[in-house]
């Protein structure tokens, strides 16, 4: 199946559900002249709400560049990106930052927790950024930590938690402000197999909700079973899209 056909099928399927992310003809170049590298070559992608979409492929295939663009962290060289019905081209500066803060949650490969803050304080950070009072934000974060199974660790520092626990705090942080789009970059890469499975199960159980789209970048094929759709990337393009049925809460 050629690439265009795959993408057309993917787009046609997507129309049946609310499209949280729509990418059309997205390209991204780094450098200029002889040093120019084309990281994305005309990518078309739809990400649906209520689903978990896995972006998979070998290192350097453009996965990270694509989610950076989708999350509004990077500008595309060409093409159109619409997130939650809002064209990112029309959001600039402060408005883009506010959009990200309100509607997008992030889970990073290296967790990126603030080492001096407790689990609850770390999870409360997005609420504090949005202007909520500290006590109120931490209280809300505690309930989310309970939901991810870390109710007994709310006052622990990241250094007192295992890798899996830290990633669960990062997931709580990503969900605490109830974003409509969750972007996860290699959430299991720094974890052992068991912890990786636990984190993916948690993402499926807690993060995947009606009206919320979850994008997970991974090259860990042990977790492919958790995605509703698997977008295979290669050399800056989408090679194929697989759809599969995953039981809720699995």
């Amino acid at each position, binding site marked *: 199946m050629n690439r265009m056909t795959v993408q057309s099928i993917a787009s046609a399927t997507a129309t049946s559900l609310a499209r949280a992310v729509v990418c059309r003809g997205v390209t991204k170049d780094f450098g200029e002249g002889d040093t120019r590298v084309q990281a994305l070559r005309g990518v078309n992608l739809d990400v649906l709400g209520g689903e978990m979409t896995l972006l998979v492929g070998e290192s350097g295939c453009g996965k990270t560049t694509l989610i950076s663009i989708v*999350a509004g962290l990077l500008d595309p060289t060409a093409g159109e990106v619409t997130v939650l019905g809002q064209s990112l081209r029309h959001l600039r500066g402060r408005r883009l930052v506010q959009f990200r*803060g*309100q509607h997008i949650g*992030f889970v990073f*490969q290296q967790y*990126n927790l603030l080492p001096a803050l407790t689990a609850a304080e770390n999870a409360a*950070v997005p609420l504090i*950024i949005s202007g909520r009072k500290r006590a109120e934000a931490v209280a809300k974060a505690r309930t989310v930590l309970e939901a991810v199974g870390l109710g007994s660790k709310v006052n622990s520092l990241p250094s007192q938690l295992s890798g899996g626990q830290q990633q669960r705090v990062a997931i709580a942080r990503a969900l605490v402000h109830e974003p409509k789009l969750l972007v996860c*970059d*290699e959430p299991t890469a720094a974890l052992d197999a068991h912890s990786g499975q636990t984190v993916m199960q948690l993402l499926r159980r807690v993060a995947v909700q009606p009206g919320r789209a979850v994008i997970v970048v991974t090259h860990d094929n042990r977790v492919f079973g958790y995605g509703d759709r698997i977008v295979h990337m290669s050399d800056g393009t989408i090679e194929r899209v697989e759809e599969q049925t995953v039981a809720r809460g699995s």
Partner: protein
Amino acid sequence: MSWIAIKMLTGDRAKYLGIVAGIAFAALLIAQQASIAIGLLMRTTSHIQDIADPDIWIMDPNIQFIDELKPLTENDLYRVRGVPGVAWAVRFYKGQGRLKLDIGGDKKKAKYQQSVVFGIDDAAFVGAPREIVLGKLADLRRPDAVMIDENGYRYVWPNEPLAVGRELEMNDRRVVIVGICKASETFNTFPIFYCQYHQAIRYVPQERKVMSAMLAGVEPGADAEEVCRRIQEQTALRPAKPGDPARPGLKAMTNQQFIDSTLMYFVRRTGIVVNFGITVSLGFFVGCAVAGQTFYSFTLENLRQFGSLKAMGLTNRRIVGMVLTQAFLAGFIGYGLGVGGAALFGKAMTSSGSRLAFLMPWQVLAATAAAIFVIVLLSSFVSVIKVLVLEPAVVFRG
């Protein structure tokens, strides 16, 4: 976000202590060296500060500071007394006396000591010491009577109890110590002797003019500076010959003006400011280097965290606020520790009788605060730039 910034900073103990220590060291060095320089400079004016009775000092027009007093004539005294606004004016003598400490002893083994001699008004004792430790001021009316300052006494006779009745030779004349008084530490550390004016001029080689200066008070309600101007105007002499400029009158200055003039002389003519300035500058640059390098390193280590915060919706303005909060908190604590340390050092050294010149007026604290403010700004500048240009997409690069 301020509390997050503060927790980030204080959570990294090693870096936090490094930054605070760098700033504290700079503040300590700047405040301590500046206080010593000011202490030394103020000692050059201690005679003027100790003689608090008069409002005005009147001297030869060429005088710049207290140690170069040029004698005046008795006639000058009467001219000054006639100036409107002058309530009273009295003679004052300041000179040096050579002390022979063991009177009548073997000349080959005799010890000599230079000293400062103040001749104060015979009648009203204008210019007398403010605080008497031993003896009575009235005892200065006794024959050959002098009063010595406590520091000078301890300098000449260390480890001996304070006592009156000692006999000495000053410029080959007998003097008897009838009292011991307080006087500020002087720049040259010479003992200070107070005696009546008529007695003081017996100790010095006879010259045509002997009156070093005049001390005057102004009438109630009169402006001292205006009276000074009048004294200078009314004591001016007509030109020596027609066509020549008028000869200047006596120089009259208020106590504060005379203190300032003496200070400026030492600032201009000695290397005190330059020498101490070099050490103060060193403290500033070392503070900049240590605090700046450590703070930059702290920011670099937290760059990923700052990137995450940016990705999560924190604006550049608030991130800059966080960096500045961290820098100024470290600056504030470092400043407190530094000036506190300098003050404790000064207190410990001066109370242990080390004769350290140390004076820490509020201006030293303010100047040190300004220097630390600049250090903090410079230290945080590079970090702020680094954070501002940081692309939030960095958080996705493993």
